[in-house]
């Protein structure tokens, strides 16, 4: 079970790749689908590696990404 989850709002994505470069774990890549604007929206190709660090969303100019993170278990 990954620690984080990245949710892509595909219709807003403009394929700029800033999130792909920003992700330290290679979770994201430009996908093959085409959205209404004619761009190939980004996809989570390795979702199991996501830690929920939000670095991709911080660099996204179009607020395409929503990030969820598992809250750390208290011992």
């Amino acid at each position, binding site marked *: 079970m990954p620690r984080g989850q990245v949710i892509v709002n595909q219709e807003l994505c*403009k394929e700029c790749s800033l999130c792909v470069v920003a992700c330290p774990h290679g979770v994201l890549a430009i996908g093959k689908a085409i959205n209404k604007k004619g761009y190939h929206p980004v996809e989570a190709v390795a979702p199991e590696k996501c830690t929920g660090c939000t670095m991709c969303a911080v660099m996204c100019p179009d607020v395409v990404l929503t990030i969820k993170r598992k809250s750390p278990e208290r011992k």
Partner: protein
Amino acid sequence: MKTVFQKPEALTDMPMHYCPGCTHGIIHRLVGEAIDSLAIREQTIGVASVGCSVFAYDYFNCDMQQAAHGRAPAVATGIKRVLPESMVFTYQGDGDLASIGMAEIVHAAARGENITVVFVNNAIYGMTSGQMAPTSLLGQKTATSPRGRTVEEMGYPIKMCELLATLEGPAYLARVSTHDSRHVLQAGKAIKKAFEIQQQKKGFAMVEVLSTCSVNWGMTPVKALGWLEENMIPYYPLGVYRDVTAKEGN
């Protein structure tokens, strides 16, 4: 799982018209996050400028006004003086603020007008398709300096933070960048600080945000971030140029 990142309430659902990878979108979100975190959305009035960011009034989920080219600080002055309890910010590009609006920004700063200015510096005129701006770097090729900007013909680029720091009026002046996630987070803190300065009635606050214009620079969005880091930051050093709260020790 808990949601740790989502669109701030201070931004509308309207898709932005900016080119792919344009850092305007990042800076819009940072302003939105600052407004949300201070819980001032209901009392905030933004002033949009002329340039690519002219449609900012569609994207910010607060009251907005549109000013004539370069006149945003003058319009903001009027709004703030009539409605002193409101939070007033302007969102201006380098063509708007450092060229046609030079008089308005200098005098608003000199008066110590209690407003927040978000100044987006991408070293080019974006909306009109890439002409040389007052902030274009020496040697930079643009539509109107095809062989690169030269001192003999076009003079030196203007450093707004340093220029305004010679005045007594400003309470907060900072230059930040958007070329990687660490710097974007720092930029967000500076923008929030600029709103706090206004909230505390300390006076004029401006944050200069170094930004990219990948289309008019003629490169991919990712390469544009690298160009910003390598070329703009050496000429426009990042940092805080004025902070009256630092002197008081709080």
